[in-house]
């Protein structure tokens, strides 16, 4: 079994809106899988189904061989997710935030303490570990958010626009960290609106629009196929240059 994710005809309806439209794809173990698409393409919805917080309307998916619908508990232990919205509590300190989620993951309190210390060191937040997260900069919050996603040693890490809104230093740090995760043997699914980020990091790229995957393949293969030098060109070729002004029924908000 060499796939971290195998999705087959995954579909999600919100009322009449079809957010994800019968999507099938496979993510190889150990690769960085870039998922791109214009706003409203359905990337986050797809991700939320894979991380078991949203029930698919149809289709199925396996994560490391476990069925997301029938074995959600197994799947949850194997994936770490950084969503568009930060999953942190502003009034709590980094240690308290991580302890809370770590306990919910069932980590033994001694193991958890060590793990937290180690992760805070890694994301360079040891010095502020007892300050309320509400006082942190966006970059610090995102680093802590990434630490939270890695608490339980997941095999698959999913990052939904992890560099959105960060300063160049933080962006650099996050990108390097993603490569670092790959080098440790983890599988990464990454979404971004920054085509250069995808070009730099991704091994495989899937281009989504209007709920469907338009194209999927090795980054280099895609570029060759479309005679492009950059993923950006492939993206614009496939999704067009028109501005997307569709009205969405949802209010978007990030962070606090």
């Amino acid at each position: 079994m060499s796939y971290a994710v195998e999705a087959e005809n995954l579909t999600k309806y919100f009322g009449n809106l079809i957010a994800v439209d019968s999507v099938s794809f496979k993510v190889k173990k150990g690769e960085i899988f870039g998922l791109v698409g214009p706003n409203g393409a359905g990337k986050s919805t797809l991700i939320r189904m894979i991380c078991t917080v949203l029930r698919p309307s149809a289709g199925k998916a396996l994560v490391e061989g476990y069925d997301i619908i029938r074995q959600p508990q197994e799947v949850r232990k194997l994936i770490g997710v950084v969503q568009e919205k930060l999953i942190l509590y502003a009034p709590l300190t980094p240690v308290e935030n991580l302890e809370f989620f770590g306990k919910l993951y069932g980590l033994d309190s001694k193991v958890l303490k060590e793990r937290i210390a180690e992760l805070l060191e890694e994301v360079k937040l040891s010095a502020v570990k007892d300050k309320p997260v509400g006082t942190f900069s966006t970059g610090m919050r995102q680093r802590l958010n990434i630490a939270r996603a890695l608490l339980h040693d997941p095999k698959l890490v999913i990052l939904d626009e992890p560099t959105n809104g960060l300063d160049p230093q933080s962006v650099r740090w996050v990108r390097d960290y993603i490569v670092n995760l790959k080098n440790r043997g983890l599988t990464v699914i990454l979404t971004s609106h920054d085509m250069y980020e995808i070009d730099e990091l991704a091994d495989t790229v899937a281009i989504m629009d209007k709920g469907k995957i338009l194209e999927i393949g090795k980054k280099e293969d895609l570029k060759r196929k479309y005679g492009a030098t950059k993923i950006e060109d492939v993206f614009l070729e496939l999704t067009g240059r028109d501005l997307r002004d569709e009205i969405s029924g949802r209010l978007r908000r990030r962070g606090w």
Partner: protein
Amino acid sequence: MKGPLYHLYVIMKKDLTEFYRVRARLVSMILLPILLMLLFGYMFPSNGTITHIPIAIVNQDQSTGAINVINSFIYTAESSGTFNVITYSSLSQAEQALLEGKVYAVVIFRQGFGQELSTGSATVQVIVDQMNPTLDQIVTAGIQQIFSQLNVQLSIAHGFPASSFGTILVNFQGLIPGALSSFEFLAPGFIAMSVVMGGLAGLAMAFSRERELGTMDGILMTPVSRFSIVMGKAMAQAIRGIISGIIIVILSILLFGVKIYGNVFLMAIILLLGILAFTGLGIIATSFVSDQESAQMIMLMLEMPMIFISGIFYPVLQLPWWLRDIAYMFPLVYTVTGFRSVMVMNAPLSAVWNDVLVLLIYSIVTFAIAIPLFQRMVTK
């Protein structure tokens, strides 16, 4: 140790820590009810037009003299439209009815009443429910008036001026010895109300806030059961409610001289069950919306009417039947009556067990609905 109950505890502790950290929320939770209590303490009691107040009669004397007086009493009481008279065969039954709030006064004609009346003056014992100051006054005044009327009739019948021969003296007595300030009757209702309301407001926040912020996804992505999430959050609200209840009670004692006559532990149990019953109801109501504002609106729509029909300001028995039926469908009325009976009237568990039982069943049923509903709504 790492089962659903442990997770429940972890979630509860997190919610409480978060709450404790945000001082503004902490203070408003306690200040608001105190302000409300002050306000209402001065506003009430005022008289309204209240009719058909149920009162009980206990006749322990089978003499014709007594029976005649009783018949006249019932006739006068009911024809004025102020009272509905219910006859009880034993004093303990009548007192039980008083404790349960089924009647607002018990008029006792003791053994030998007819005998005394035929030789001089006889005394009627009246026990008044002081739970509601407004009603307390009306009941007292009303009963007094009926006996004055009867005295006039009696003296005419005897051809003597009233108060010298064949006079009925009325001895009023409260259920609680000693005079009680009107506020003491209102206080338990306010305490129960504010604690329950605080629980509801906190709950609306606890759930919809996490969904809106996106942190709920973070909890849902851990292998924790939905039972632990829902119950953990509900228990956090319950504990918060109990703590605020304790603070409010202490402040009421210090500021307004409110006294506790009953068992504190029983009071806490009733409050706890009251909050849980409401929380379950609140989760069901808010599971249909995903943003905080709508959730708060729904909570408000649930709370506001309930506050006015649940016996805090106005006796439930005096409501039109359909409003009364509505009041009895929601848990606030059981919380308020149970809590008040224990706090002011020293009612034992045996007197409030039906309130406790209703709240318990209410909690269990609403959570049995709320947990699967929550599961369905979050993963929609």
